[in-house]
């Protein structure tokens, strides 16, 4: 169990470094640390499907971000009064969140137990109902296929938008 806490600590540290570093390239690389820790967490929790998707998408996103960011400096900086105000507000919010979260999280069941009602149904009858040996795929493409269709539509729309905004053909010459 302590491994998950260590990985979560690594993820938090990576995101803090990514926010506070001055160089965009360093921020991108510390984001990669977050993604890698998340991937190892998925592997530790015995979810290889999530781990494969995470590491593959993380690598592609990292390449895109490195090529897009280059070695530019982050010129936006908040100083003085505004920085103090932001820090105080964050601190107060964290305390309030911790109080409520502590009250709520003490009522949670033990980590990973019991398996939920719907999931236990899928686990016991997934193979005979869909015929797919990989249970994750049978949930993704049979029980929750609407979800996958929506996800595919979101991806399609995002790529459509990127290509339309950044296209080369059909632009007006200035």
């Amino acid at each position, binding site marked *: 169990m302590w491994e998950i806490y260590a990985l979560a600590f690594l993820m938090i540290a990576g995101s803090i470094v990514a926010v506070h570093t001055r160089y965009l390239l360093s921020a991108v690389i510390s984001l990669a640390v977050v993604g890698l820790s998340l991937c190892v967490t998925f592997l530790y929790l015995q979810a290889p499907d999530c781990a494969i998707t995470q590491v593959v998408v993380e690598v592609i996103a990292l390449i895109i971000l490195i090529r897009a960011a280059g070695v530019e400096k982050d010129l936006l900086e908040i100083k003085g009064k505004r920085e103090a105000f932001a820090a105080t507000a964050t601190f107060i919010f964290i305390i309030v969140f911790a109080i409520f979260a502590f009250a709520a999280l003490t009522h949670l069941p033990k980590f990973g137990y019991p398996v939920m009602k719907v999931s236990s149904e899928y686990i016991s009858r997934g193979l005979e109902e*869909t*015929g*797919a040996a*990989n249970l994750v795929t*049978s949930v993704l*493409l049979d029980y929750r*296929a609407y979800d996958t269709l929506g996800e595919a539509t979101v991806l399609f729309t995002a790529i459509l938008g*990127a290509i339309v905004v950044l296209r080369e053909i059909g632009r007006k010459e200035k």
Partner: protein
Amino acid sequence: MSPYRARKEGMTNIVKTISKFVVPPIILFGIYMVLHGHLTPGGGFPGGVIMASGFILLILSFGKEVTLKKLKVSTASILESTGALIFLCLAILGIPAGGWFFVNFLSKGYPLKIISAGIIPLANIGIGIKVMGGVFAVFFTLVVFRISAKR
């Protein structure tokens, strides 16, 4: 020396030679992952991204001219639309064949065989084609177009 490696564009000769050997296995592994999505971990989405990453390695090492000979951006976006249409048609075919949207109308077969689980492998293939075209196109647009706009 091959004409591709003699070009000035792209990275050094070492990178070009190694990526020449590495790119086909990457694409083959992506295809394997798409086809075995219903048997082993993986599936359409990660398999498609792995196939696209093979082409992205081609862009990074050989430059965009060589890559565009292998896979044009317009072809990639056609592939993306085709994959989305395959998935949607499989979903709609369920209405005449089985009664409702997304019904698994093909035979289930024996588990752990490659032809089993009805429409799930076909849907995986559709998603794999779609994600491969989409990720390649969005990489090309975000990276190459932006760099050419900077100059």
